[in-house]
Protein backbone atom coordinates (compact mmCIF):
# COMPACT_ATOMS: atom_id res chain seq x y z
CA UNK A 1 0.00 0.00 0.00
CA UNK A 2 1.72 3.14 -1.26
CA UNK A 3 0.04 5.87 0.73
CA UNK A 4 0.83 9.27 2.21
CA UNK A 5 -0.42 8.88 5.76
CA UNK A 6 0.87 9.04 9.30
CA UNK A 7 -1.11 6.57 11.40
CA UNK A 8 -3.54 4.40 9.41
CA UNK A 9 -6.01 4.68 12.31
CA UNK A 10 -5.89 8.48 12.24
CA UNK A 11 -6.31 9.18 8.55
CA UNK A 12 -9.50 11.14 9.07
CA UNK A 13 -8.25 13.20 12.04
CA UNK A 14 -4.98 13.99 10.29
CA UNK A 15 -6.79 14.93 7.10
CA UNK A 16 -9.16 17.26 8.94
CA UNK A 17 -6.16 19.15 10.34
CA UNK A 18 -4.98 19.71 6.78
CA UNK A 19 -8.36 20.87 5.54
CA UNK A 20 -8.54 23.40 8.36
CA UNK A 21 -5.05 24.72 7.71
CA UNK A 22 -5.33 24.85 3.95
CA UNK A 23 -8.76 26.41 3.63
CA UNK A 24 -9.51 28.69 6.58
CA UNK A 25 -12.01 30.60 4.42
CA UNK A 26 -14.06 27.40 3.97
CA UNK A 27 -13.68 25.45 7.20
CA UNK A 28 -13.87 26.25 10.88
CA UNK A 29 -13.37 23.70 13.62
CA UNK A 30 -16.09 23.01 16.19
CA UNK A 31 -15.94 21.49 19.67
CA UNK A 32 -16.48 18.10 18.03
CA UNK A 33 -13.37 17.00 16.12
CA UNK A 34 -15.62 15.18 13.67
CA UNK A 35 -17.66 18.25 12.74
CA UNK A 36 -16.51 21.10 10.50
CA UNK A 37 -18.54 24.16 9.70
CA UNK A 38 -18.45 27.01 7.26
CA UNK A 39 -16.87 29.86 9.24
CA UNK A 40 -19.89 32.13 8.69
CA UNK A 41 -22.33 29.45 9.93
CA UNK A 42 -24.82 29.65 11.51
CA UNK A 43 -25.93 32.34 9.06
CA UNK A 44 -28.57 34.57 10.63
CA UNK A 45 -32.02 34.08 9.14
CA UNK A 46 -30.94 31.19 6.92
CA UNK A 47 -32.01 27.58 7.27
CA UNK A 48 -28.98 25.46 8.15
CA UNK A 49 -27.90 22.79 5.69
CA UNK A 50 -26.07 19.76 7.05
CA UNK A 51 -24.73 16.58 5.56
CA UNK A 52 -22.44 13.83 6.69
CA UNK A 53 -21.19 10.39 5.86
CA UNK A 54 -18.19 8.14 5.88
CA UNK A 55 -14.82 9.48 4.79
CA UNK A 56 -12.91 8.26 1.74
CA UNK A 57 -15.20 10.00 -0.77
CA UNK A 58 -13.40 13.33 -0.81
CA UNK A 59 -14.18 15.99 -1.86
CA UNK A 60 -17.52 14.56 -0.59
CA UNK A 61 -18.77 15.21 2.00
CA UNK A 62 -16.80 17.99 3.64
CA UNK A 63 -15.78 19.53 0.30
CA UNK A 64 -19.32 20.76 -0.18
CA UNK A 65 -19.23 22.93 2.92
CA UNK A 66 -19.01 26.52 1.80
CA UNK A 67 -20.69 29.64 0.53
CA UNK A 68 -24.27 28.93 -0.59
CA UNK A 69 -23.64 25.28 0.09
CA UNK A 70 -23.52 23.06 3.16
CA UNK A 71 -23.15 24.82 6.54
CA UNK A 72 -21.79 21.95 8.61
CA UNK A 73 -20.71 18.39 8.05
CA UNK A 74 -20.45 15.26 10.20
CA UNK A 75 -17.35 13.28 9.32
CA UNK A 76 -17.22 9.51 9.75
CA UNK A 77 -14.36 7.04 9.70
CA UNK A 78 -13.39 5.80 6.25
CA UNK A 79 -16.49 4.20 4.70
CA UNK A 80 -18.35 4.33 8.02
CA UNK A 81 -21.20 6.56 9.12
CA UNK A 82 -20.40 9.36 11.58
CA UNK A 83 -21.75 8.82 15.08
CA UNK A 84 -25.10 10.34 16.02
CA UNK A 85 -23.31 12.88 18.21
CA UNK A 86 -21.45 14.22 15.19
CA UNK A 87 -24.68 14.73 13.28
CA UNK A 88 -26.17 16.40 16.35
CA UNK A 89 -23.22 18.73 16.75
CA UNK A 90 -23.37 19.57 13.06
CA UNK A 91 -27.03 20.49 13.46
CA UNK A 92 -26.13 22.80 16.32
CA UNK A 93 -23.28 24.35 14.30
CA UNK A 94 -25.61 25.07 11.37
CA UNK A 95 -28.77 26.19 13.16
CA UNK A 96 -29.47 29.90 13.25
CA UNK A 97 -32.89 29.24 14.72
CA UNK A 98 -34.53 28.65 11.35
CA UNK A 99 -34.15 24.88 11.56
CA UNK A 100 -31.81 22.49 9.81
CA UNK A 101 -32.13 20.44 6.65
CA UNK A 102 -30.09 17.26 6.98
CA UNK A 103 -29.46 15.98 3.45
CA UNK A 104 -27.70 12.62 3.43
CA UNK A 105 -27.42 9.28 1.67
CA UNK A 106 -29.40 6.10 2.17
CA UNK A 107 -27.08 3.77 4.10
CA UNK A 108 -28.02 1.66 7.11
CA UNK A 109 -25.54 3.37 9.41
CA UNK A 110 -26.35 6.88 8.30
CA UNK A 111 -30.06 6.26 8.62
CA UNK A 112 -29.64 5.04 12.18
CA UNK A 113 -27.24 7.73 13.28
CA UNK A 114 -29.25 10.55 11.73
CA UNK A 115 -32.43 9.16 13.28
CA UNK A 116 -30.81 9.21 16.73
CA UNK A 117 -29.36 12.65 16.17
CA UNK A 118 -32.69 14.10 15.06
CA UNK A 119 -34.28 12.76 18.26
CA UNK A 120 -31.48 14.21 20.36
CA UNK A 121 -31.76 17.54 18.51
CA UNK A 122 -35.50 17.74 19.19
CA UNK A 123 -34.72 17.52 22.91
CA UNK A 124 -32.33 20.44 22.50
CA UNK A 125 -34.93 22.48 20.64
CA UNK A 126 -33.39 22.20 17.17
CA UNK A 127 -35.87 21.40 14.40
CA UNK A 128 -34.34 19.07 11.85
CA UNK A 129 -35.94 17.71 8.72
CA UNK A 130 -34.25 15.21 6.46
CA UNK A 131 -33.96 14.21 2.83
CA UNK A 132 -32.41 10.83 2.07
CA UNK A 133 -30.70 10.49 -1.29
CA UNK A 134 -31.53 7.31 -3.20
CA UNK A 135 -30.30 8.06 -6.70
CA UNK A 136 -28.37 4.82 -7.40
CA UNK A 137 -30.51 2.89 -9.89
CA UNK A 138 -28.29 -0.18 -9.57
CA UNK A 139 -28.92 -0.67 -5.86
CA UNK A 140 -32.55 -1.81 -6.04
CA UNK A 141 -35.31 -2.15 -8.63
CA UNK A 142 -37.64 0.75 -9.29
CA UNK A 143 -40.46 -0.70 -7.17
CA UNK A 144 -38.10 -0.73 -4.16
CA UNK A 145 -36.81 2.78 -4.73
CA UNK A 146 -36.69 3.41 -0.97
CA UNK A 147 -33.94 0.78 -0.72
CA UNK A 148 -31.67 2.51 -3.21
CA UNK A 149 -28.39 3.99 -2.05
CA UNK A 150 -27.46 7.63 -2.37
CA UNK A 151 -24.42 8.36 -4.50
CA UNK A 152 -23.13 11.37 -6.46
CA UNK A 153 -26.67 12.70 -6.93
CA UNK A 154 -26.25 13.89 -3.36
CA UNK A 155 -24.19 16.75 -4.76
CA UNK A 156 -27.15 18.00 -6.77
CA UNK A 157 -29.36 17.53 -3.69
CA UNK A 158 -26.99 19.65 -1.58
CA UNK A 159 -26.64 22.23 -4.33
CA UNK A 160 -30.40 22.64 -4.78
CA UNK A 161 -31.27 22.59 -1.09
CA UNK A 162 -28.47 24.94 -0.14
CA UNK A 163 -29.27 27.37 -2.96
CA UNK A 164 -32.89 27.44 -1.82
CA UNK A 165 -31.71 28.17 1.72
CA UNK A 166 -29.42 30.92 0.42
CA UNK A 167 -32.34 32.40 -1.50
CA UNK A 168 -34.21 32.62 1.78
CA UNK A 169 -36.55 29.63 1.65
CA UNK A 170 -37.89 28.32 4.97
CA UNK A 171 -37.12 24.82 6.23
CA UNK A 172 -39.98 23.22 4.34
CA UNK A 173 -38.96 25.01 1.18
CA UNK A 174 -35.37 23.85 1.51
CA UNK A 175 -36.49 20.28 2.15
CA UNK A 176 -38.84 20.43 -0.83
CA UNK A 177 -36.10 21.73 -3.13
CA UNK A 178 -33.63 19.06 -2.01
CA UNK A 179 -36.26 16.34 -2.28
CA UNK A 180 -37.27 17.48 -5.75
CA UNK A 181 -33.63 17.52 -6.84
CA UNK A 182 -32.93 13.98 -5.66
CA UNK A 183 -36.25 12.70 -6.99
CA UNK A 184 -35.15 13.92 -10.39
CA UNK A 185 -31.68 12.36 -10.14
CA UNK A 186 -30.59 8.95 -11.29
CA UNK A 187 -27.04 7.61 -10.95
CA UNK A 188 -25.00 4.52 -11.70
CA UNK A 189 -21.43 3.50 -10.93
CA UNK A 190 -18.84 1.59 -12.91
CA UNK A 191 -15.85 0.10 -11.08
CA UNK A 192 -12.59 -0.87 -12.78
CA UNK A 193 -10.44 -1.58 -9.73
CA UNK A 194 -10.86 -1.97 -6.00
CA UNK A 195 -9.59 0.49 -3.41
CA UNK A 196 -7.63 0.10 -0.20
CA UNK A 197 -8.68 1.48 3.19
CA UNK A 198 -5.38 2.53 4.82
CA UNK A 199 -6.24 0.98 8.19
CA UNK A 200 -7.02 -2.32 6.48
CA UNK A 201 -4.06 -2.36 4.12
CA UNK A 202 -5.48 -4.75 1.54
CA UNK A 203 -8.00 -4.16 -1.25
CA UNK A 204 -11.55 -3.79 -0.04
CA UNK A 205 -12.92 -6.21 -2.64
CA UNK A 206 -11.79 -7.64 -5.96
CA UNK A 207 -12.35 -6.72 -9.60
CA UNK A 208 -10.27 -8.98 -11.81
CA UNK A 209 -8.00 -7.41 -14.41
CA UNK A 210 -9.86 -7.33 -17.71
CA UNK A 211 -13.25 -7.04 -16.00
CA UNK A 212 -15.36 -4.15 -14.79
CA UNK A 213 -18.38 -4.01 -12.52
CA UNK A 214 -21.46 -2.13 -13.63
CA UNK A 215 -23.60 -0.74 -10.85
CA UNK A 216 -20.95 -1.03 -8.15
CA UNK A 217 -21.50 1.03 -5.01
CA UNK A 218 -19.22 3.66 -3.52
CA UNK A 219 -17.85 1.17 -1.00
CA UNK A 220 -17.70 -1.74 -3.41
CA UNK A 221 -21.29 -2.85 -2.87
CA UNK A 222 -22.07 -5.47 -5.49
CA UNK A 223 -23.25 -4.16 -8.83
CA UNK A 224 -25.63 -5.46 -11.46
CA UNK A 225 -23.10 -7.31 -13.53
CA UNK A 226 -19.40 -8.05 -13.88
CA UNK A 227 -18.55 -7.70 -17.57
CA UNK A 228 -15.42 -7.74 -19.69
CA UNK A 229 -13.55 -4.46 -19.67
CA UNK A 230 -15.06 -2.55 -22.56
CA UNK A 231 -14.29 0.63 -24.46
CA UNK A 232 -15.29 3.97 -22.97
CA UNK A 233 -18.01 4.26 -25.60
CA UNK A 234 -19.46 0.89 -24.64
CA UNK A 235 -19.16 1.76 -20.97
CA UNK A 236 -21.09 4.97 -21.63
CA UNK A 237 -23.88 2.96 -23.24
CA UNK A 238 -24.02 0.54 -20.31
CA UNK A 239 -24.28 3.47 -17.91
CA UNK A 240 -26.69 5.72 -19.79
CA UNK A 241 -29.32 3.09 -20.55
CA UNK A 242 -30.26 2.06 -16.99
CA UNK A 243 -30.22 5.70 -15.90
CA UNK A 244 -32.51 7.13 -18.56
CA UNK A 245 -34.79 4.10 -18.67
CA UNK A 246 -35.62 4.72 -15.04
CA UNK A 247 -38.21 7.40 -14.32
CA UNK A 248 -38.36 10.36 -14.76
CA UNK A 249 -36.57 11.15 -18.04
CA UNK A 250 -38.51 11.90 -21.19
CA UNK A 251 -37.38 13.29 -24.53
CA UNK A 252 -37.32 17.06 -24.51
CA UNK A 253 -36.10 17.30 -20.92
CA UNK A 254 -33.21 19.53 -20.03
CA UNK A 255 -30.73 17.82 -17.73
CA UNK A 256 -27.69 18.48 -15.58
CA UNK A 257 -25.04 15.77 -15.84
CA UNK A 258 -22.33 14.83 -13.41
CA UNK A 259 -19.59 12.34 -14.27
CA UNK A 260 -17.43 11.74 -11.24
CA UNK A 261 -14.23 9.79 -11.17
CA UNK A 262 -13.91 7.25 -8.38
CA UNK A 263 -10.43 8.48 -7.49
CA UNK A 264 -7.64 7.07 -9.63
CA UNK A 265 -9.10 7.38 -13.11
CA UNK A 266 -7.38 10.25 -14.94
CA UNK A 267 -9.45 13.31 -15.86
CA UNK A 268 -8.86 12.76 -19.57
CA UNK A 269 -10.56 9.38 -19.36
CA UNK A 270 -13.57 10.86 -17.61
CA UNK A 271 -13.85 13.24 -20.56
CA UNK A 272 -13.52 10.40 -23.08
CA UNK A 273 -16.42 8.75 -21.27
CA UNK A 274 -18.35 12.00 -21.08
CA UNK A 275 -18.08 12.64 -24.83
CA UNK A 276 -20.14 9.52 -25.52
CA UNK A 277 -22.53 10.07 -22.61
CA UNK A 278 -23.27 13.55 -23.97
CA UNK A 279 -24.11 12.13 -27.39
CA UNK A 280 -26.22 9.29 -26.00
CA UNK A 281 -28.24 11.70 -23.88
CA UNK A 282 -28.68 13.87 -26.95
CA UNK A 283 -29.85 10.84 -28.95
CA UNK A 284 -32.46 10.26 -26.24
CA UNK A 285 -33.68 13.83 -26.65
CA UNK A 286 -32.10 15.09 -23.42
CA UNK A 287 -30.38 18.45 -23.71
CA UNK A 288 -27.48 18.96 -21.32
CA UNK A 289 -27.77 22.34 -19.63
CA UNK A 290 -24.67 21.90 -17.49
CA UNK A 291 -22.08 19.17 -17.18
CA UNK A 292 -19.71 18.53 -14.31
CA UNK A 293 -16.84 16.14 -15.09
CA UNK A 294 -14.19 15.50 -12.48
CA UNK A 295 -13.48 13.93 -9.12
CA UNK A 296 -16.59 15.05 -7.24
CA UNK A 297 -17.44 11.93 -5.22
CA UNK A 298 -14.70 9.36 -5.01
CA UNK A 299 -13.91 6.05 -3.36
CA UNK A 300 -10.31 6.40 -2.22
CA UNK A 301 -8.06 5.10 -5.02
CA UNK A 302 -10.72 3.17 -6.92
CA UNK A 303 -10.65 3.38 -10.71
CA UNK A 304 -13.94 3.94 -12.48
CA UNK A 305 -16.67 6.55 -12.67
CA UNK A 306 -20.23 7.36 -11.76
CA UNK A 307 -22.86 8.99 -13.94
CA UNK A 308 -25.63 11.16 -12.50
CA UNK A 309 -28.35 12.72 -14.63
CA UNK A 310 -30.84 15.18 -13.13
CA UNK A 311 -33.97 16.38 -14.87
CA UNK A 312 -34.34 20.13 -14.65
CA UNK A 313 -37.32 22.40 -14.35
CA UNK A 314 -37.05 26.16 -14.06
CA UNK A 315 -36.67 26.03 -10.29
CA UNK A 316 -34.00 23.33 -10.15
CA UNK A 317 -32.14 24.96 -13.00
CA UNK A 318 -32.04 28.25 -11.12
CA UNK A 319 -30.85 26.48 -7.96
CA UNK A 320 -28.16 24.53 -9.80
CA UNK A 321 -26.95 27.66 -11.57
CA UNK A 322 -26.76 29.61 -8.30
CA UNK A 323 -23.16 30.69 -7.56
CA UNK A 324 -21.32 28.85 -4.82
CA UNK A 325 -17.87 28.35 -3.37
CA UNK A 326 -16.49 25.23 -1.75
CA UNK A 327 -13.54 22.89 -2.13
CA UNK A 328 -15.47 20.52 -4.38
CA UNK A 329 -17.51 22.99 -6.38
CA UNK A 330 -17.03 26.67 -7.12
CA UNK A 331 -19.07 28.44 -9.73
CA UNK A 332 -19.86 31.99 -10.66
CA UNK A 333 -23.11 33.64 -11.50
CA UNK A 334 -23.54 32.03 -14.91
CA UNK A 335 -22.81 28.70 -16.57
Amino acid sequence: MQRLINDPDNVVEDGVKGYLKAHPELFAATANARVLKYPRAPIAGKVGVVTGGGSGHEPAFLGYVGENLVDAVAIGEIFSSPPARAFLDAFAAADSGQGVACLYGNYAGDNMNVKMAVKMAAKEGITVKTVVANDDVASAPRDQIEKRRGVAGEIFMWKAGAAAAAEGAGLDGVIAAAQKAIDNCRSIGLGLTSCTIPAVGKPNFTIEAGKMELGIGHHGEPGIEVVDLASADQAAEMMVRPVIEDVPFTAGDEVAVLVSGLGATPLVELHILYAKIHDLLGDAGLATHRAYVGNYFTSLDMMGATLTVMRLDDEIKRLIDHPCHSLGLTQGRQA
Partner: protein
Amino acid sequence: MTSFPADRGADIVRALIRVITENRAYLSEIDGAIGDGDHGVNMAKGFALCAEKMGPGAMSLSAALQLLGETLMESIGGSMGPLYGMYFIGLGEAAEGIDQIAAPDFQAMLEQGLTDLRSITEAQIGDKCLMDTVVPATSAFSGALAAGAEFAAALDRMTEAAEAGRDSTKEMVAKIGRASRLGERSRGTLDAGATSCALLLAEMAAAMKPMLA
Protein backbone atom coordinates in the same frame (compact mmCIF):
# COMPACT_ATOMS: atom_id res chain seq x y z
CA MET B 1 -36.28 -15.28 44.61
CA THR B 2 -32.59 -14.77 43.79
CA SER B 3 -31.51 -11.34 42.64
CA PHE B 4 -28.53 -9.03 42.75
CA PRO B 5 -28.23 -5.43 43.87
CA ALA B 6 -28.59 -2.93 41.01
CA ASP B 7 -25.80 -0.80 42.41
CA ARG B 8 -23.29 -3.41 41.20
CA GLY B 9 -24.00 -2.08 37.70
CA ALA B 10 -20.61 -0.47 37.20
CA ASP B 11 -18.86 -3.76 37.90
CA ILE B 12 -20.96 -5.55 35.31
CA VAL B 13 -20.30 -2.91 32.66
CA ARG B 14 -16.60 -2.93 33.55
CA ALA B 15 -16.59 -6.66 32.84
CA LEU B 16 -18.10 -5.98 29.42
CA ILE B 17 -15.47 -3.36 28.73
CA ARG B 18 -12.75 -5.79 29.74
CA VAL B 19 -13.97 -8.60 27.52
CA ILE B 20 -14.14 -6.34 24.48
CA THR B 21 -10.74 -4.83 25.17
CA GLU B 22 -9.22 -8.28 25.59
CA ASN B 23 -10.76 -9.51 22.37
CA ARG B 24 -9.91 -6.45 20.26
CA ALA B 25 -7.49 -8.30 17.98
CA TYR B 26 -9.64 -11.44 17.83
CA LEU B 27 -12.73 -9.52 16.72
CA SER B 28 -10.84 -7.57 14.10
CA GLU B 29 -9.33 -10.78 12.82
CA ILE B 30 -12.76 -12.35 12.37
CA ASP B 31 -14.02 -9.19 10.65
CA GLY B 32 -10.95 -9.34 8.41
CA ALA B 33 -12.01 -12.61 6.83
CA ILE B 34 -15.17 -11.28 5.18
CA GLY B 35 -15.38 -7.66 6.35
CA ASP B 36 -12.86 -4.85 6.61
CA GLY B 37 -11.09 -6.02 9.72
CA ASP B 38 -11.97 -3.21 12.08
CA HIS B 39 -14.72 -4.59 14.29
CA GLY B 40 -12.45 -5.08 17.29
CA VAL B 41 -10.91 -1.66 16.81
CA ASN B 42 -14.32 0.02 16.49
CA MET B 43 -15.77 -1.73 19.53
CA ALA B 44 -12.69 -1.30 21.73
CA LYS B 45 -12.64 2.43 20.94
CA GLY B 46 -16.21 2.92 22.14
CA PHE B 47 -15.91 0.67 25.20
CA ALA B 48 -12.65 2.30 26.29
CA LEU B 49 -14.30 5.70 26.05
CA CYS B 50 -17.06 4.45 28.34
CA ALA B 51 -14.47 3.25 30.88
CA GLU B 52 -13.03 6.76 30.92
CA LYS B 53 -16.43 8.30 31.48
CA MET B 54 -17.38 5.83 34.23
CA GLY B 55 -14.34 6.32 36.37
CA PRO B 56 -13.74 3.98 39.30
CA GLY B 57 -16.96 4.49 41.31
CA ALA B 58 -20.20 2.55 41.69
CA MET B 59 -23.22 3.05 39.43
CA SER B 60 -26.65 1.54 39.14
CA LEU B 61 -27.05 -1.09 36.46
CA SER B 62 -29.50 1.17 34.67
CA ALA B 63 -27.19 4.16 34.66
CA ALA B 64 -24.10 2.14 33.76
CA LEU B 65 -25.76 0.37 30.82
CA GLN B 66 -27.24 3.62 29.54
CA LEU B 67 -23.87 5.32 29.80
CA LEU B 68 -22.35 2.48 27.79
CA GLY B 69 -25.14 2.67 25.20
CA GLU B 70 -24.93 6.43 24.88
CA THR B 71 -21.17 6.34 24.55
CA LEU B 72 -21.32 3.74 21.80
CA MET B 73 -24.07 5.58 20.01
CA GLU B 74 -22.28 8.87 20.24
CA SER B 75 -18.79 7.78 19.45
CA ILE B 76 -18.34 4.75 17.25
CA GLY B 77 -20.56 5.58 14.32
CA GLY B 78 -21.13 3.11 11.50
CA SER B 79 -23.93 0.63 12.11
CA MET B 80 -22.55 -0.94 15.27
CA GLY B 81 -22.58 2.35 17.16
CA PRO B 82 -26.31 2.88 16.97
CA LEU B 83 -27.15 -0.86 17.13
CA TYR B 84 -25.18 -1.62 20.30
CA GLY B 85 -26.02 1.86 21.52
CA MET B 86 -29.74 1.26 21.25
CA TYR B 87 -29.36 -2.21 22.70
CA PHE B 88 -27.58 -1.16 25.87
CA ILE B 89 -29.77 1.91 26.33
CA GLY B 90 -32.78 -0.40 26.03
CA LEU B 91 -31.36 -2.79 28.64
CA GLY B 92 -30.59 0.11 30.92
CA GLU B 93 -33.93 1.88 30.58
CA ALA B 94 -35.76 -1.32 31.50
CA ALA B 95 -33.71 -1.49 34.72
CA GLU B 96 -34.55 2.03 35.76
CA GLY B 97 -35.78 2.39 39.33
CA ILE B 98 -35.19 -1.24 40.24
CA ASP B 99 -32.97 -1.78 43.28
CA GLN B 100 -32.67 -5.55 43.22
CA ILE B 101 -32.50 -7.16 39.79
CA ALA B 102 -34.41 -10.44 39.76
CA ALA B 103 -34.77 -12.85 36.83
CA PRO B 104 -38.04 -11.31 35.51
CA ASP B 105 -36.41 -7.88 35.62
CA PHE B 106 -33.52 -9.13 33.56
CA GLN B 107 -35.97 -10.80 31.18
CA ALA B 108 -37.73 -7.46 30.74
CA MET B 109 -34.36 -5.80 30.14
CA LEU B 110 -33.39 -8.31 27.44
CA GLU B 111 -36.74 -7.93 25.75
CA GLN B 112 -36.57 -4.13 25.83
CA GLY B 113 -33.06 -4.22 24.35
CA LEU B 114 -34.24 -6.41 21.50
CA THR B 115 -37.28 -4.23 20.85
CA ASP B 116 -35.13 -1.12 20.69
CA LEU B 117 -32.68 -2.87 18.39
CA ARG B 118 -35.51 -3.79 16.06
CA SER B 119 -36.71 -0.20 16.03
CA ILE B 120 -33.63 0.74 14.03
CA THR B 121 -32.75 -2.30 11.94
CA GLU B 122 -34.71 -4.74 9.88
CA ALA B 123 -31.97 -7.34 10.18
CA GLN B 124 -33.31 -10.81 10.99
CA ILE B 125 -32.06 -14.13 12.25
CA GLY B 126 -30.29 -15.76 9.33
CA ASP B 127 -28.84 -12.52 7.95
CA LYS B 128 -25.45 -13.33 9.52
CA CYS B 129 -25.22 -10.52 12.05
CA LEU B 130 -25.60 -9.85 15.74
CA MET B 131 -29.33 -10.73 15.51
CA ASP B 132 -28.28 -14.37 15.19
CA THR B 133 -26.89 -14.13 18.70
CA VAL B 134 -29.22 -11.77 20.48
CA VAL B 135 -32.54 -13.24 19.34
CA PRO B 136 -31.96 -16.85 20.43
CA ALA B 137 -30.21 -15.72 23.62
CA THR B 138 -33.23 -13.65 24.62
CA SER B 139 -35.65 -16.51 23.87
CA ALA B 140 -33.49 -18.97 25.77
CA PHE B 141 -33.54 -16.82 28.90
CA SER B 142 -37.31 -16.24 28.73
CA GLY B 143 -37.93 -19.90 27.86
CA ALA B 144 -35.86 -21.13 30.79
CA LEU B 145 -37.76 -18.88 33.20
CA ALA B 146 -41.08 -20.05 31.77
CA ALA B 147 -39.91 -23.64 32.28
CA GLY B 148 -39.24 -22.79 35.95
CA ALA B 149 -35.47 -22.34 35.88
CA GLU B 150 -33.61 -20.30 38.48
CA PHE B 151 -31.93 -16.98 37.50
CA ALA B 152 -28.46 -18.56 37.38
CA ALA B 153 -29.60 -21.50 35.29
CA ALA B 154 -31.48 -19.21 32.93
CA LEU B 155 -28.30 -17.16 32.52
CA ASP B 156 -26.48 -20.36 31.59
CA ARG B 157 -29.14 -21.15 28.98
CA MET B 158 -28.76 -17.62 27.63
CA THR B 159 -24.99 -18.00 27.29
CA GLU B 160 -25.35 -21.36 25.58
CA ALA B 161 -27.89 -19.97 23.13
CA ALA B 162 -25.77 -16.89 22.43
CA GLU B 163 -22.77 -19.07 21.65
CA ALA B 164 -24.83 -21.47 19.54
CA GLY B 165 -26.27 -18.47 17.71
CA ARG B 166 -22.80 -17.13 17.08
CA ASP B 167 -21.71 -20.55 15.77
CA SER B 168 -24.76 -20.73 13.51
CA THR B 169 -23.49 -17.73 11.56
CA LYS B 170 -20.55 -19.77 10.34
CA GLU B 171 -22.57 -21.60 7.72
CA MET B 172 -24.68 -18.59 6.73
CA VAL B 173 -24.39 -16.45 3.63
CA ALA B 174 -24.31 -12.79 4.71
CA LYS B 175 -27.36 -10.76 3.73
CA ILE B 176 -26.35 -7.39 5.21
CA GLY B 177 -23.24 -5.30 5.78
CA ARG B 178 -20.02 -5.45 3.84
CA ALA B 179 -19.86 -9.25 3.82
CA SER B 180 -23.05 -9.44 1.75
CA ARG B 181 -20.92 -8.46 -1.26
CA LEU B 182 -19.21 -11.84 -1.08
CA GLY B 183 -22.35 -13.95 -1.49
CA GLU B 184 -21.48 -17.65 -1.21
CA ARG B 185 -17.90 -16.76 -0.32
CA SER B 186 -19.09 -15.36 3.02
CA ARG B 187 -19.99 -18.91 4.08
CA GLY B 188 -17.53 -20.69 6.36
CA THR B 189 -16.61 -17.80 8.67
CA LEU B 190 -18.13 -16.52 11.88
CA ASP B 191 -19.82 -13.12 11.78
CA ALA B 192 -17.90 -10.52 13.74
CA GLY B 193 -20.96 -8.78 15.21
CA ALA B 194 -22.52 -12.07 16.26
CA THR B 195 -19.23 -13.00 17.90
CA SER B 196 -18.85 -9.78 19.87
CA CYS B 197 -22.47 -10.08 20.93
CA ALA B 198 -21.93 -13.62 22.23
CA LEU B 199 -18.87 -12.45 24.16
CA LEU B 200 -20.88 -9.62 25.70
CA LEU B 201 -23.89 -11.72 26.73
CA ALA B 202 -21.72 -14.53 28.12
CA GLU B 203 -19.65 -12.02 30.07
CA MET B 204 -22.76 -10.31 31.40
CA ALA B 205 -24.04 -13.67 32.66
CA ALA B 206 -20.68 -14.56 34.15
CA ALA B 207 -20.48 -11.22 35.94
CA MET B 208 -24.02 -11.49 37.36
CA LYS B 209 -23.89 -15.07 38.60
CA PRO B 210 -21.48 -14.53 41.53
CA MET B 211 -23.59 -11.52 42.61
CA LEU B 212 -26.76 -13.55 42.93
CA ALA B 213 -28.13 -14.07 46.42
